[in-house]
Every structure is written in C-alpha cells, then in structure tokens.
C-alpha cells in the first residue's frame, strides 16, 4: 500500500482516467475525495471507494467555479484533516467543433476554463493546506495535444493543455520551498471512456485509425490503468525529487 492513509482529491473522477486514478489510489490505501460535473457518475465511484474500506466524499463541482472548488476543499479538510495529493484531471474537449473558423469565443472559453483555469483554481485552493503541512503533491493532466497537436481536438484544447505544462512549472518553482512537488503527465490517445471511443470511431476513418496506431512504436493506444499508474508514481515516495516535469505517456508517439 503505497498511499496508506494519504488524503487525495481527484477531479473529473466520474469516468476515464480520473475514475481509474481514484480507484487506484484507494487500492493503495488512500482516502479519496472525488468530484465531477456528472453527479450520478461520481457518486457511484465514491461508493466503489467506500466498498474498498477507504474513506471517500463526492462533490458535484465545476472546477472553473471558485466557490464550488473552495467549498469542496474545505469540506475535505474538515472531514479528513489534511490534503496530501491533488490530481487535476477534470477537462476534455467536450465534443465541440475543432476547425479554427468554427471555434467561437464561447467554445474557446469553455475548453480553456475547464482544462486550464480549473487546474489553477483547484491548485490555489489546496496550496494553503499543503504549505502548512510542508508537504503535498499536485499532479496535472496535460496531453500529447499540448506538445504535438491532438487527433480528436482543436487549438482550444492544445492551447489549454500546453498552458497546463507552464502552470505546472511555475507551481513547482513557487511551491517547491514548501516541500510540495508539481508535475504533469501528457497522455497520448487513450480510449478512456465510451465518449472518447465514439469520437475515435466517428472522427477517424479506418485508414486514419490505422495510421495513428502505426505511428506509435508500441503499436497500440493506452489503457486507463497505464495512465493511472504513472499518476500513482508521481504521488508516491519514489518521485520525491521529481518536480516540474511533464511525463509523456504516449507509447513513443512521433519518435519513429
């Protein structure tokens, strides 16, 4: 049990990588507060965590809403006494138009707010508690899209995810003296939920899908568990001197 009695918050935990990470943390002994805009889904994940014998709380939260985030963090500290780990996973492309000319201001704002501003708001909310503890781990979800462009997403998503890398570095610099590390992972395409699977089938022809796989040295897409296991590493003692990095978890995309 690598996270025995640690307290974690995982955002966007109703499905996909967030859900996988929350469950993985619980299996490693952590108490996990989970949030999502999908209340039904995140409640179910919270119940699954309780069933493993760990403590859990669930919240219906839009991470770009400061009041909701602050209330969640406060309630978590009241209930569990501390916050050791924050995983900023909430975000996504929301199946919105990707062509530059079709990206309205509203589409831009929605994607950047959820992926970038939400990461800022959640990090800001936990920082005072982590500083007081003189320890903490913040793990952000960037994306391959933030490095090389995305397969199923547009510039609004790539910009936000590139922003997450910059945010991660500055957090690492500013919070390092308090014993807090900040890191990110940049997943390649993972068929992490039925929603992503649907996009993968709809937005790519069979030939295009084959070409994508062929460009990955490991010749496959990743599983949710393969992303969650890297997040677990960054939350564990093994990564205590790792800070400010973005780990690519993409099967070697673009190296071949």
């Amino acid at each position, binding site marked *: 049990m690598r996270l025995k009695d640690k307290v974690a918050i995982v955002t966007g935990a109703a499905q996909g990588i967030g859900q996988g990470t929350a469950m993985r943390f619980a299996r490693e002994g952590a108490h996990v507060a989970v949030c999502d805009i999908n209340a039904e889904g995140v409640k179910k994940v919270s119940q699954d965590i309780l069933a493993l014998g760990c403590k859990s709380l669930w919240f219906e939260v839009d991470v770009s809403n400061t009041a909701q985030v602050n209330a969640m963090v406060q309630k978590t500290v009241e209930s569990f006494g501390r916050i050791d780990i924050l995983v900023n996973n909430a975000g996504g492309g929301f199946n919105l138009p990707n062509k530059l000319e079709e990206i309205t201001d509203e589409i831009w704002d929605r994607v950047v707010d959820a992926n970038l501003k939400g990461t800022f708001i959640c990090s800001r909310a936990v920082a005072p508690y982590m500083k007081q503890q003189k320890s903490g781990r913040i793990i952000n979800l960037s994306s391959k899209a933030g490095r090389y462009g995305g397969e199923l997403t547009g510039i609004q998503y790539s910009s936000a995810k590139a922003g997450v890398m910059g945010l991660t*570095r500055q957090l*690492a*610099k500013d*919070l*390092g*003296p308090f*014993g807090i*590390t900040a890191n990110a992972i940049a997943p*390649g395409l993972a068929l992490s939920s039925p929603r992503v699977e649907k996009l993968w089938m709809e937005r790519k022809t069979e030939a295009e899908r084959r070409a994508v796989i062929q460009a*990955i*040295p*490991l*010749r496959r897409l*990743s*599983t949710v568990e*393969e*992303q969650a*296991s*890297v997040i*677990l*590493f960054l939350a564990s*003692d*093994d*990564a*205590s*001197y*790792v*800070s*400010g*990095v973005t*780990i*690519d*978890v*993409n*099967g*070697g995309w673009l*190296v*071949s």
Partner: protein
Amino acid sequence: MGLERKVAIVTGGAGGIGTATIRALAQEGVNVVISDVNWEGAKKLEESLVSQGGKALAVQTDIADLSQVKELARKTLSSFGRIDILVNNAGISPKHQGKKRNLWEMSVEEWERVIDVDLNGYFYCCHEIVPHMIPNGWGRIINISSQAARSGGQVAGSHYTAAKSGVLGLTKSLAGEIGKYGITVNAVTPGRIDTPIIRDVPPEVNLEFAKRTPLGRLGTAEDVAGAILFLISDAASFITGATIDVNGGLGMY
C-alpha cells in the same frame, strides 16, 4: 512489482546511482549483473547481495571497449540464461583541480575518451544486448543521461554535455525501432545528485546548486533509483522514448 527472476545489467554498477539501482532491483528479486571498471567495488557489492540471499554477478567492464561489452553479455547469458533489463549508467566527467576545461583548452584525447565511454559505450551495450531481448517480447532499457543535456553543462565539460545529449537522441531513435518487440527505451536526466562523482568540485559549488533547487536540496542516489525502477515496472508500460528529469525542479523543460 512482478520482476522476480528477471535479469538486469547495470553498467557503472559500483557507483552511487548504480549501487542504489542494483540494491532496489535485488529487493524486487531481480538477478543483477554489476558491470563496472572498478572491479573491487563491483565484487564487494556482489558479495554483499549474495550474502543476503540475492543472485548477483560482478563483471569488470570498460564499456568503451566493444570486446569487453561482448564479454559482459556472454557472461550474463552463461550465468543467468537471459537479459531482460539494461541500465546504461556508466559514465565519466573529467575535471582538473575541481573544474571543467573549456572546449578549446581540452585535449582531443580527453574529448574522445568521454565520447567513447558516455556515448559509444551506451551504443555498444545496446548493440550487443538488444538482440537477446527481442526474442523475449519484453525488455526495458534505461539510459542515464544528465541535466547537462537539457541545459548545457555548468560544471561538466562540453564533451560530457554532447555525449549526454547524444544519449537522448539514441534513446528516442531506438525506442522508435524497437517498440514493436515490446521493449521500451527511456532516459533519466538526473540533476545534482549527492554521490561520490560530484565531490570532485569544491563543496560550495554543490551548496549553491541545492540553494537554487526549488526543493532546496541535492538529490540522493535513491531518488534516481526510484525513477529507474518506475520505468522498469509495469506501471510504465506505455512510456517509451521519454525523458524523466529527476532534479528537484532545478531545470524544467
């Protein structure tokens, strides 16, 4: 971790990071080959691990010499029958009275020796060992590069920086070629790690590094071994061609 009875070769195995890596691997039940030019150090580590019930083999190797690398592979196969993991870690970083020499002041021989060990040696080890990994359908290669490759060497010379940058290129290239055989290739770029190799400069130089590091300290060999073990484990099964910085935030790329 599921690594029991796998076979690992760690070059520079008697040094700081090498020893920490070997001890961590042995803890996981891995059969370890300690390759080093320092025969006494390698032999001592072998004896220590064997007395604790582990399986270990010391092999004296200058990785800059292809024939010695061939011998390393041969001895590993004859003792353990297979090779699953290669940690390319051996390296040199010459100093003169605690300082690097500027590029135009270093001897051509010094340049060549550093490239021979820090870059060609990695190539020789991959070249001789990869063919034994491919039939297994699983393998892990971890190349120890350096923060010098990311930011230029402030303490290390241009030969070291160039070789370590070359290691990052080799890592990506090999990862692309070999992924289809279930073998991942990744690099670790340590920052200032408190091991004997960094004590060839005045103490205040290292103190200054610690002060500039967001986490406020030098790294330990165990910090680096933690990242190496992660890359070897199944937790990193979808990571290849990547570079992980272990530097406390001293450099962020």
